[in-house]
């Protein structure tokens, strides 16, 4: 029984982190109907950049994060402006494959720069436990991950629903022509949406990088997790991602408890495939499927 409670708690907390990984992808899909196949690589790229700043520039985690966000915003704007915006109107396949190519480039560039060694961002949080009893132990890192994830997803939802920027972005996503007639530069809105996504992704990169080991090809792994989260929650639904993340985290940890650790990742994907074959549009999808 203890084991199950532990699995549920850890699963939910892990789910928060997964949701944060997935929310950027959901956002991009919701706004420009693009499945960002390089999403995981964006995240791992930011983890690598954070480590570089931590090693050479500053000891402060927040300063490193902010510097990384600045670098990544620059990168994201270039990608959005010169790659995605140029192909986004040319059918569904072209942008998908452009991002696929970008993913290959990022992975191999990381390999050339940093080599194949696994890395991890060192934090004090890793070694502290918030709750440590015989019944239950909760790592500070997992709890922080969860809280930050919830805070960011709520903040993102508020920005998208209440601010004028959010309204403009949503307008560009629901009806391009009408939005442009109202004087909204939709391509610029896409850049802003990418910027928001990049900020969230950098935070996810920090948290994931300090929780798990990563190396140049890890992006793919998190891309699939982001898929899972977003598909369970419904593409484009931000709060859905939170629930999607928790379902994925729970099913992974419960699967690991009942069938053994090797089945952890597998059981998560099985639940995903089952949900998808019953409800092909995800649990909370509002977005129209293309």
């Amino acid at each position, binding site marked *: 029984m203890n084991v199950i409670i532990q699995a549920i708690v850890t699963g939910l907390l892990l789910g928060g982190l997964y949701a944060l990984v997935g929310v950027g992808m959901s956002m991009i*899909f919701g706004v420009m109907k693009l*499945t960002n*196949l390089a999403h995981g690589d964006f995240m791992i790229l930011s983890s690598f950049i954070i480590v570089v700043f931590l090693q050479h520039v500053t000891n402060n985690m927040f300063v490193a994060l902010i510097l990384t966000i600045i670098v990544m915003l620059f990168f994201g704007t270039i990608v959005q402006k010169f*790659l995605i915006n*140029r*192909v986004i109107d*040319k059918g*569904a*396949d*072209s942008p*998908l*494959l*452009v991002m*696929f*190519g*970008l*993913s*290959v*480039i990022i*992975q*191999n*560039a990381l*390999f*050339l720069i940093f080599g194949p060694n696994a890395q991890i961002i060192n934090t004090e949080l890793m070694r502290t436990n918030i709750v440590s009893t015989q019944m239950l132990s909760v790592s500070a890192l997992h709890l922080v991950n969860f809280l930050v994830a919830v805070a960011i997803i709520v903040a993102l939802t508020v920005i998208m629903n209440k601010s004028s920027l959010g309204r403009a972005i949503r307008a560009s996503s629901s009806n391009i022509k009408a939005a442009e007639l109202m004087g909204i530069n939709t391509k610029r809105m896409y850049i802003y949406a990418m910027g928001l996504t990049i900020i969230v992704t950098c935070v996810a990169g920090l948290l994931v990088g300090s929780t798990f080991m990563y190396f140049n090809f890890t992006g*793919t792994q998190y891309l*699939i997790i982001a*898929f*899972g989260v977003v*598909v369970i929650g419904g*593409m484009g639904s931000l709060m859905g991602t939170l629930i999607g993340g928790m379902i994925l985290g729970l099913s992974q940890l419960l699967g690991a408890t009942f069938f*053994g650790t*090797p*089945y952890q*990742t*597998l059981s998560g*994907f*099985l639940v*995903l*495939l089952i949900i*998808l*074959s019953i409800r*092909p*549009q995800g649990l909370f999808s509002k977005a129209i*499927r*293309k």
Partner: protein
Amino acid sequence: MKTLLENKTNTVKVGVVIIALALLVTLPNWGTRGMIPIFTLIMIYIAFGQMWNLLSGYTGLVSLGQHAFIGLGGYALAVSSERFGLPLYVGFIMAAIVSFLFALIISVPIFKIKGVYFTICTWVVAHSLGLFLSTLAFVNYAIGINIRATFRLPTSTIYYVALGVAIVSVLAVYLLLRSRFGLGLMAMRDDEDAAEARGVALYKTKLKCFLISSVIMGVAGAAMFMNLGFILPASAFGIDWTISMVIIVIVGGKGTIEGPIIGAVILVMLRQWLFDFPGYSMLILGAIAIILILVAPKGIMGLVHRFTGAEFFSVRRRPKRITEPK
């Protein structure tokens, strides 16, 4: 006059194809030792590219999980040879059967899913298969299996198998697309609703295409692992295969038969050339792919076609009567 010219170019085309085939078949007799393994790889990648192209370039089912069948084919060969002691050709038959059955089973849930979700789901299925096989004692977990029967094979035998697979894949796509079925496929890709209204059975057409693509992919996968001689889940179900397929098709030209051939040659040659610098070849290929999507969405073959009008394996139907424009 015009028909004569057309016939003449046709003769030239047939001649070129026959000469190319003759050169490929006699390659072990005239080629250097180093050429045979490279051509083996090119042949297998041609098959991979053709099958991905058949599925995604012609039917619009963009799948990023076709490496599931490469892995299944490889494992079918490895298991039947190592665990059951069957000869290698039985392994190839098993690869076809296993791929067929898996494609048939997985098509039931996966065809309900459309668009991007389909793309994602195929990937997740392939990834899950790899994870599943690494938990099985029967296939030696994630440690992998040596396919010892392949160690004694001469390189020319492996080359001929690869050549056979490549020829079968090209022929299959060519004949399929020239048939009535292929017409339905292309109609479906261009406009699903219109095609259905004209009597194309969507589900059946997609399913057939998926099955054919999967079976040949499985056999090509078995050929690949016969060439490698060793299989483990991470390599068998790695996304690298699909990355290669996609790059081959994009660089060569989506929706053409010549495209994957050109793409496969470029991919294998570039990798071979940059063998001492791992990472660079994929970096360059990724960049080439992106640039091509931006400036020439139809790939190299599209460019060639635009400037010279040359097409080797045309699957387009031309009107039989040629009327002079007035």
